[in-house]
């Protein structure tokens, strides 16, 4: 085995020798397997490796598993040590019920000051508990008599207490009790509920998820009012300790899938999770594909609809995007709107999307293949005008196409980054002006502009951005194939593509289902949007379940 040398990328370590260990810990597989040949097919093994979250949290030296100390002074010392140089730490000593010394610890930045004062401090100071010296029933009576709407949480070790503090809790330590109580008084800081920018609909609800997971759960609960809607809480990220929620409807989602999702999520050991993208790559079956194997949406109705279809959704705190799995290839071409529109119109729209997705994928390569290899296939009059348009152009058609496609993608990317008001103008005007000027200067031929702009429009027709990006990406190798070998090369490229698609799975679900493997009833919601009276979502789920359980 070849020895691999690491440069010191770890800012926390000054010793080069320790890097290897550092990588081993942070790249979620043991040092011995890094860059070894086993890794090639160790995808599944890796995600299935279970490591309890406690173990991951135990990494920093400050959070020990130790039971809380008797003495408030000791606890304070330890807390102050742990939260050293944290300007927002508040440690306050109180005397509750006249003779119980209590130490309150919280991070000022995280909690709602008003609620703390009105909802906890006031009732706490007015609290009167008899026989405070009896330790056992003390907490029960304390909880029972405290007039606060906020249910407290018991904890007896420091690690847990610290965790509660950083999650926005107010932790009460009691003298000589070895126990602490935590009240979750989270800051209600959040943005307004708005219509999702990326998935606007004409007919349908106008609300979208926000960055706060509790609000997102509320939005979902409001749509599905059944106790069978399960929301299982987990955390990921050794440093960020990000809250995630696995949502599914009991008896609808296949247990195998739920288990798989939970198992893969708990196996993740990333430092941080800032969005769904982090998790998506970690839990999908094949990370090495540009095609989305997990759908992300910021629409509550889309999530609710998917859950009823028997899917599993994963909410991540800090992002308005919610992951839905397992999905198939065709999800990339579906929009929630399809279910709100008339079914004939919706079916037609789906076909339009399929057609234009094909255009987006193949148009440039068909143009290149036909004009450089198969001129006899072009109708004579078109051939003459194409030849006239190409007359003074210096580049071969393939180079021309690649240049213009790259320019188009650049303009699109620039449009995303620019401030919203100028973005659109710049991208459209840029495309037109650059296109026009390039044609007039004789650098690019006019038909290329038509092909590229039609391709661009076609790629915007695909509702799922991830799918649109995947298709845009594969356009380039296909143009190369077409430029090298004509239609022959193009069909070879398309076949390779099909093989790749057919090999993909989304949590065990074949990616091209229900077309391959074929399922007649499954096509009702893929090739068409069947009328609701025929389109029983339950049936869809049952089919899918069978597919998943008999792989």
């Amino acid at each position: 085995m070849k020895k691999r040398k690491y440069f010191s990328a770890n800012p926390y370590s000054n010793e080069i020798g320790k890097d290897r260990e550092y990588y081993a810990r942070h790249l979620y597989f043991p040092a011995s397997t890094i860059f070894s040949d086993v890794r090639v097919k160790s995808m599944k093994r890796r995600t299935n490796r279970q490591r309890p979250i406690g173990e991951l949290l135990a990494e920093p030296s400050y959070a020990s598993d130790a039971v809380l100390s008797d003495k408030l002074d000791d606890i304070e010392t330890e807390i102050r040590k742990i939260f050293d140089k944290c300007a927002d730490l508040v440690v306050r000593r109180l005397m509750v019920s006249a003779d119980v010394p209590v130490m309150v610890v919280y991070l000022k930045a995280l909690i709602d000051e008003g609620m703390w004062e009105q909802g906890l401090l006031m009732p706490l100071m007015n609290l009167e508990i008899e026989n405070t010296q009896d330790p056992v029933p003390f907490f029960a009576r304390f909880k029972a008599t405290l007039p606060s709407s906020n249910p407290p949480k018991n904890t007896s070790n420091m690690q847990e207490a610290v965790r509660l503090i950083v999650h926005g809790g107010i932790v009460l330590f009691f003298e000589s009790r070895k126990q602490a109580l935590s009240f979750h008084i989270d800051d209600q800081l959040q943005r307004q509920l708005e219509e999702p920018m990326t998935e606007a609909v004409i007919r349908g609800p106008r609300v979208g998820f926000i960055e706060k997971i509790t609000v997102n759960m509320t939005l979902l609960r409001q749509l599905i009012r059944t106790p069978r809607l399960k929301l299982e809480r987990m955390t990921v990220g050794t440093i960020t300790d990000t809250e995630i929620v696995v949502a599914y409807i009991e008896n609808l989602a296949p247990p195998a899938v739920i288990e798989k999702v939970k198992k893969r999520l708990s196996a993740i050991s990333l430092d941080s999770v800032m969005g769904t993208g982090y998790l998506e790559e970690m839990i999908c079956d094949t990370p090495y594909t540009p095609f989305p194997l997990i759908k992300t949406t910021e629409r509550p109705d889309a999530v609710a609809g998917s859950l009823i279809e028997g899917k599993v959704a994963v909410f991540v705190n800090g992002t308005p995007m919610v992951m839905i799995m397992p999905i198939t290839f065709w999800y990339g071409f579906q929009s929630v709107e399809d279910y709100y529109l008339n079914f004939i119109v919706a079916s037609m729209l789906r076909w339009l999307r399929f057609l234009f997705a094909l255009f987006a994928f193949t148009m440039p390569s068909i143009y290149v293949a036909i004009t450089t290899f198969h001129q006899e296939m072009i109708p004579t009059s078109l051939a003459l005008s194409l030849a006239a348009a190409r007359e003074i152009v210096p580049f071969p058609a393939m180079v021309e196409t690649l240049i213009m496609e790259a320019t188009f993608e650049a303009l699109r990317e620039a449009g995303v980054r620019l401030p919203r008001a100028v973005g659109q103008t710049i991208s459209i005007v840029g495309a037109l002006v650059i296109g026009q000027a390039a044609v007039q200067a004789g650098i690019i031929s006019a038909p290329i502009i038509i092909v590229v702009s039609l391709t661009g429009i076609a790629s915007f027709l695909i509702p799922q951005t991830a799918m649109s990006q995947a298709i845009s990406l594969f356009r380039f190798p296909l143009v190369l194939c077409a430029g090298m070998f004509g239609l022959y090369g193009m069909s070879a490229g398309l076949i390779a593509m099909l093989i790749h698609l057919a090999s993909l799975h989304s949590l065990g679900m074949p990616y091209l289902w229900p077309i391959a493997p074929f399922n007649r009833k499954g096509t009702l919601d893929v090739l068409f949007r069947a009328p609701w009276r025929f389109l029983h979502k339950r049936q869809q789920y049952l089919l899918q379940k069978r597919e998943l359980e008999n792989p």
Partner: protein
Amino acid sequence: MRIDRKAHLIFVLIVGLVFVAGCWDRREMDEIALVMASGVDITDDGQLELSVQIALPTAIPGTLQTGGTDKKPVQVISVKGRAGLEVFALLQQQLSRQLFLGHRAVIVFGEKFAKAGIDQALDVLIRMPDSRYNSYVLTSYGTTAKELLNAPYRMEVIPAIGMKNIEAAKYSVAVKVDEFISDLSTVGKMPVTGAARLFEDAAGDKTFQIDKAAVYRGNKLAGFLSGKYLKGYKLMSGQAKGMKIAVQVEPVREKTKGIVTVEILRAKTKVLTHWEKDTPRVTVSFEATSRALANESSLDLSKANHVRRLETELTDKLRETISDMIAKTQREYRSDILGFGREFHIQHAKEWKKLKGQWDELYPEIPVAVAAEMKIERIGRIQAPGPLSKEEVQ
């Protein structure tokens, strides 16, 4: 590691292959000379003269270049040489762009060349992969292919497209390369092509017209069919639909000419071959339905007896037209253009073996009976002839 290395190697090989093997037959649209029509002639000293009409895309008025250019949209180049493909190579030498035959609309055989035999041009037609089978074949009449290709045509930007459109609309006899070659190689069927000639239009410009059919005997041009003979051939060769036939149903009177014109709606031809007493015999039947287009007689076509009279006249005329045509091909051209031999082959396969070798000699002697039938299906919106008063209508 081994798998990684293998994967790398395969990747590198594939990428290498693409760049090594790819692109070898790539040609850009602006690197090819689009041949729109080609013509073959024979010079007086027996050399082959190949002419091509090449489209010049920049000279074609489009939206990009408003206002006409003075350039001609086509260029005709001629080269003399010995053999077909050698001339082609000579032609290529004159051009900065690669000759591209994929869009060739027509191929013209010069009259003299066709009379001498078209063998030399055949290889260019059949063997060259560039050459497609869907160009139309024409034979020049009273002129050379070169002059025909040089003739301007006002209706279309490119004259060859004009020829192609005339052929495609079947105003004349339309034969494509594949059909021509197939007829040429079949014993018992002789090829026919459209025949084009030069004529002066009203403005005095020379242009072309396709108004005849060229009859081949084997690989040599035997003659041309025109007028009623051409009509007879078109009736029998499945190109009867839409054909207009005028017939004299009554003598010319003071107000009427006595002519009724009909248009054929549907036509069915059948060739029946017989083998009796060791002699071949052919019966040809022609059935058609038509509609009355113009009635310049005094007959009221809503009356059944008048329609029957018209039908009889038409039938007679059709029979005469067809048998005249067959007689001409038998006596004058001795060329079996209707494919009686092929019908014999199909209907009397055993006897055909005996006939096959001497068919070309036998054909002129074969007795042919012609049966025709014409039905009037529609008589138009008015029954009586338009210009006559009620009393004058019969």
